[in-house]
């Protein structure tokens, strides 16, 4: 007796026999074929030209009767369509939303950078704040802004680095076209160089 290794689907996280109930069957199939082709053959048959038909044929041997099987099949298709619609909507939402990076002056030569609008992209704000804190060696925290939304506040003038980092982060998620809006409350170099002179 020994332990069994179970492969979990990379798309829906179920064991592959339950992929058909997850509503993401199409993408599950692609994933399974790429990663575990032997399992793909086992569950969906080797001829994928008529995958939906093959599946129904396989299920014909099921015990719950033709009528119920048909109903189940219909329900599953409905679920799948729903899931697909939802995903599309979500993607649309992601693409249409934008990230706002704002630089604010705190005292004369000190700035904070506030980032908001990240929560749509399923990014863990707290974790990102932690990485920023160690990356830039500054204080960084998550706080609520005026609109009661979460934002990351970084102590220090690191707006360019933050922009680059978030760009790469979004690119990793396959969302290259997301807009980054950069709001700079003061002109970049002038205030930092002129203010000390004025005070002199």
């Amino acid at each position: 007796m020994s332990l069994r290794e179970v492969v979990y689907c990379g798309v829906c996280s179920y064991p592959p026999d339950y992929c058909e109930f997850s509503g993401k069957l199409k993408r599950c199939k692609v994933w399974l074929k790429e990663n575990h082709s032997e399992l793909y053959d086992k569950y969906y048959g080797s001829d994928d030209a008529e995958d939906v038909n093959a599946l129904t044929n396989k299920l014909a041997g099921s015990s719950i009767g033709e009528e119920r099987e048909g109903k189940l099949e219909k329900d599953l298709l409905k679920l799948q369509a729903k899931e697909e619609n939802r995903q599309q909507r979500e993607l649309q939402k992601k693409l249409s939303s934008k990230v706002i990076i704002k630089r604010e002056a705190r005292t004369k030569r000190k700035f904070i950078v506030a980032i908001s609008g990240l929560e749509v992209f399923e990014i863990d704000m707290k974790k990102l704040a932690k990485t920023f804190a160690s990356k830039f060696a500054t204080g960084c925290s998550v706080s609520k802004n005026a609109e009661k939304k979460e934002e990351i506040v970084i102590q220090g003038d690191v707006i360019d680095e933050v922009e680059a980092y978030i760009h790469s982060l979004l690119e990793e998620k396959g969302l290259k076209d997301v807009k980054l809006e950069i709001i700079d409350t003061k002109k970049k170099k002038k205030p930092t160089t002129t203010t000390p002179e004025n005070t002199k």
Partner: protein
Amino acid sequence: MFKKFSKEDVHSRSKVKSSIQRTLKAKLVSQYPQLESVIDELIPKKSQIELIKCEDKIQLYAVDGEILFFQKFDELIPSLRLVHKFPEAYPTVQVDRGAIKFVLSGANIMCPGLTSPGAKLPVSPGFEKDSIVIINAENKENALAVGKLLMSTDEISSINKGHGVELIHHLGDPLWNFSVE
């Protein structure tokens, strides 16, 4: 039990002492005797069990960031990932194909789903009321849920009406997707 469950429900996390770890393992074996041969593979002697206390007095036990079992009252309940590793050790019932959809959305299992041709119940004496069972499905290899019997399996087949199994944990529920970082 895990209809709604997220990181906010976690109250505290702590490491379990090795002596308590031993008694936990012993308890697990006494509940599921067949685990004895593999318990050291499931929870190696050197490993560190982590206790995660949550809302509603639910306690999760995790090894290497993977939740292996949990406990609400006195009974230890295996998580599905543990079940998948060694399914033979637990009492099992099987539901028919039509029920899978409902089980995966968290419904309790009705008796007819356990008695129809595609389903399987153990031959008598069967299992007692209130025992923990894992739920398998027709033509499927892996378990899809963990539940608690609301009546004994003999009663299920004789009465054949109403709720048979109370669902505790199923594929795709928040506990399944929960990750301890």
